[in-house]
């Protein structure tokens, strides 16, 4: 694949049945055995994803907390060491620069994990906002490899490779200096699938060692390498947003139903004026879930219709492998959808009826301690 960058797992993937595609400039596996088999392995057993394309930025210095409070939408003031928060980073107009995880090492040192396709844009934005704060930003993306092991057997499999008691790592918390298969790693109980599991960060050139050790440790338990294809169907079912779909530089977090991660009471932050105004005077659009009532698959960007009038667009839609239903999410005009139970999705030359359903489509089974 010309021009695309290799992750530490790219060569292993290509040699082990990975169907390789270019994604956000990286040479990655979209599937191995098949999307549905991999999806089901994660829901029922365990799957391992190469997510080395993700970006990592270290934020440190005496002004780190004040900086994050200003830069991001969530409230980091009550965070403990080794805790993680999910947050948005917004523009002044309230739309989304990126969504990310914030790992707190200490009060003045944090790791931010950002989307691969947004790394350059995010860092430029973050540096621009950092001028008035005593912080140093270090882009560690090129040195940091990452994998995610997800599924009900994830903990049991990875526990075979480490002396650290993984059950002590609670949901949305992490430990660093965890030795897995002899390799020094940072391990968090996080993921993007709606299943229990971990994300594992280590040195770029060490990740393959951890990857192959996990495959070996889980081979009698149905472990499966899992590609980007099922990463999307899994996160979609679990109601987790994908940048460029449910959130983007034209969508605010309140429109996307992510108000829980926007703490307007913490004081001024980038985008807070517009988001406050939306909260008080009405949020223009709403993210809804729907299920098709006739044959068809609703795809991203298809029009959502109500009585012949376009009221929005599909953000993500699939034949859900877990639910075996044709379902989707759509961003629609809030006033138009009030009291409505049935909409139509424009699929090519047909308007297919769909009923509104609650989000998330699939309920998480993550462990919380």
């Amino acid at each position: 694949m010309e021009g695309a960058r290799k992750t530490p797992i790219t060569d292993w993937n290509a040699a082990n049945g990975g169907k390789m595609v270019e994604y956000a400039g990286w040479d990655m596996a979209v599937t191995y055995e098949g999307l549905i088999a991999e999806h089901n392995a994660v829901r029922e057993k365990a799957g391992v994803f190469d997510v080395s394309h993700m970006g990592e930025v270290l934020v440190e210095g005496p002004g780190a907390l004040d900086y994050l409070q200003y830069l991001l939408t969530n409230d980091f003031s009550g965070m403990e060491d080794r805790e993680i928060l999910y947050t948005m980073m917004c523009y002044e107009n309230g739309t989304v620069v990126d969504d990310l995880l914030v790992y707190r090492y200490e009060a003045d040192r944090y790791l931010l994990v950002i989307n691969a396709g947004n790394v350059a844009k995010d860092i430029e934005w973050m540096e621009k906002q950092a001028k008035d704060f005593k912080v140093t930003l270090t882009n560690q993306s090129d040195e940091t490899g990452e994998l995610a092991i997800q599924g009900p057997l994830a903990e049991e499999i990875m526990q075979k490779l480490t002396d650290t008691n993984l059950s002590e790592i609670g949901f949305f918390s992490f430990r660093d200096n965890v030795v897995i298969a002899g390799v020094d790693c940072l391990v968090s109980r996080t993921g993007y699938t709606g299943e229990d599991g971990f994300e594992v960060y280590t040195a770029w050139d060490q990740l393959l060692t951890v990857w192959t050790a996990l495959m070996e440790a889980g081979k009698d338990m149905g472990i499966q390498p899992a590609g980007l294809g099922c990463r999307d169907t899994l996160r979609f079912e679990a109601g987790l947003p994908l940048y460029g779909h449910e959130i983007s530089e034209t969508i605010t977090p309140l429109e996307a139903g992510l108000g829980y991660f926007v703490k307007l009471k913490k004081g001024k932050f980038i985008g807070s004026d517009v988001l406050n105004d939306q909260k008080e005077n009405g949020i223009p659009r709403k993210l809804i879930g729907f299920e098709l009532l006739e044959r068809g698959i609703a795809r991203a960007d298809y029009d959502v219709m109500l009585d012949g009038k376009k009221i929005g667009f599909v953000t993500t839609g699939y034949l859900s492998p877990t639910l075996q239903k044709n379902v989707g999410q759509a961003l629609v005009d809030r006033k138009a959808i009030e009291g409505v139970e049935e909409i139509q999705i424009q699929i090519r030359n047909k308007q297919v009826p769909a009923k509104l359903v609650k989000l998330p489509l699939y309920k998480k089974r993550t462990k919380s301690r």
Partner: protein
Amino acid sequence: MREMKDLLFTNEHEWVDVQGEEAYVGLTEFASKALGDIVFVELPEVDDEFSMGDSFGVVESVKAAADMYMPIDGVVTELNTELEDEPAQINQAPLEGWFLKFKVTNKEQLGELMTPADYERFCEEEA
């Protein structure tokens, strides 16, 4: 059993099996592998008339939707409605999973389709 050597091909990866005045059309193994797990097909109606290159239907995998194109001019005479319930047949046996049968209305166009050897080279270039 249908065999590759007896078929003609389009550059949109349809196979064509000419039987006298009629022909069957389906999706090649190369394309079905590229699409991945196929979960949906949309077929036209019997008696629908299409020109060469018209989209006559849709095939969708979990990830993506792709149009099916008419290899040459024709009028639909029969549909394989089994595919609507069992779209995975296309992955399992691409040459058996025909989409539709049509009456050939312009036989000269068959000369514009690829032979098996041409198609094999075409796929090597696309891979």
